[in-house]
């Protein structure tokens, strides 16, 4: 399935991933987080050639292998078996993070617990409740050239995950460039958070009403279907 084709049964997760994939440019080196970010790979059109980076030491991961053809030693950072594309390479985890810190990652796509209107990201700890650890998220959020957040707009309790200021400990400050949710596409600029598109069938008023952060609107807001 390519960009622009809408499945009747498309889930909100797939729609977010399909929209995020439109920001991917030919030739990019990209790291995908676990969850919705992983789905983005399925929506990148064939005419855009990219290389996916994995923190455990692969540049050039390909699609999931067919059942029964998995190599248990060849996995992505989430622990799931992957394949390789031509030109792929293996290296140790220090080199995997050299690529990130050196600024050679064009884009990272990751999920969040909270993201603020100035781009602060919180995604690794809910003190006293859930403490999985930061993994590679600090390096990714701090060092990737473009940081794309993909998330549900609201948390399980119906609260906006797009906030004025993060209440949870930060992963990185002023890191996010784009935020794509099931309700909206937003861009973080130095002077604030801009609403660029709404996800059909939500209206601009719906999105502003559901968002705790201050959302700026300039010009025409697109509708993504």
């Amino acid at each position: 399935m390519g960009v622009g084709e809408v499945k009747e049964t498309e889930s909100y997760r797939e729609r977010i991933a399909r929209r995020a994939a439109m920001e991917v440019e030919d030739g990019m080196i990209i790291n995908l987080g676990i969850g919705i970010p992983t789905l983005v790979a399925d929506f990148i059109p064939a005419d855009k050639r990219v290389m996916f980076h994995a923190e455990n030491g692969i540049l050039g991961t390909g699609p999931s292998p067919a059942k029964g053809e998995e190599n248990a030693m060849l996995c992505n950072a989430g622990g799931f078996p992957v394949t390789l594309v031509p030109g792929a390479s293996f290296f140790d985890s220090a080199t995997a993070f050299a690529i990130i810190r050196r600024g050679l990652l064009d884009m990272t796509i990751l999920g969040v617990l909270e993201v603020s209107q100035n781009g602060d990201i919180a995604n690794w700890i809910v003190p006293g409740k859930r403490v999985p650890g930061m993994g590679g998220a600090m390096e990714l959020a701090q060092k990737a050239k473009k940081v794309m957040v993909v998330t549900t707009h609201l948390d399980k309790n119906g609260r906006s995950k797009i906030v004025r200021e993060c209440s949870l400990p930060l992963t990185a400050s002023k890191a996010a460039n784009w935020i794509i949710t099931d309700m909206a596409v937003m861009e973080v600029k130095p002077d604030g958070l801009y609403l660029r598109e709404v996800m059909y069938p939500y209206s601009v008023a719906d999105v502003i009403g559901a968002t705790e952060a201050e959302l700026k609107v300039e010009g025409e807001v697109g509708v993504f279907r």
Partner: protein
Amino acid sequence: MTNRFDKVVTLQEALSHFRDGMTLLAGGFGGVGNPPTLIQGILDLGVRDLILISNDTAFPHIGIGKLVTERRVKKVIASHIGSNPNAGAQMTAGELEVEFCPQGILAERVRAGGVGLGGILSDVGIGTIAEKGKQKVVLDGKEYLLETPLTAEVAIVHAKKADRFGNLVYDTSARNFNPLVAMAGDITIVEADEIVEVGELDPEEIVTPGVFVNYIVQSEGVNWRWAWEK
């Protein structure tokens, strides 16, 4: 001196280097590249109160995660424990001390320990709670955190192939932390899927030179089911 050109020992000989309360460095990432036979040996040996340095705590019944599940670890230095709920539960109950370190910084700290450096400077985590307790260094007007090196009394490593000198070749993404860990043990013990004679490995393909390795044991292979296997 042990024979430097034949470091292959029995599992029992290798296990003579483990004791209660020791620091243990383990290669692997999400269980991939954890050495299964050595880990089973450590479990069977019954050592406890380990200080484990590893990227993560794997899964409850996979790899290094089993040491946590069986309550053999009193402290872990890792970047992530989320895939092993036992680690989180023990931490919440105050039974397991966890020191979190950003993944790439953990890799560099292990590398620093392994390559004889006194510390490294990085700006990763500045402005977050990851900077807590770390010395700040200003260099050319830019602020860095001083990250300290990590070594351990014993480092355990998985390799696809080892020759008897300890030259190592890894297995695809099971390489991950293993080459770093291999350099950072006071004693480095390698578990290899295949052990070959000195001279059989192409020098161009060797990732870890054997000089870093003290002992080699033959792997008996993975003895767990992977999380993705249904």
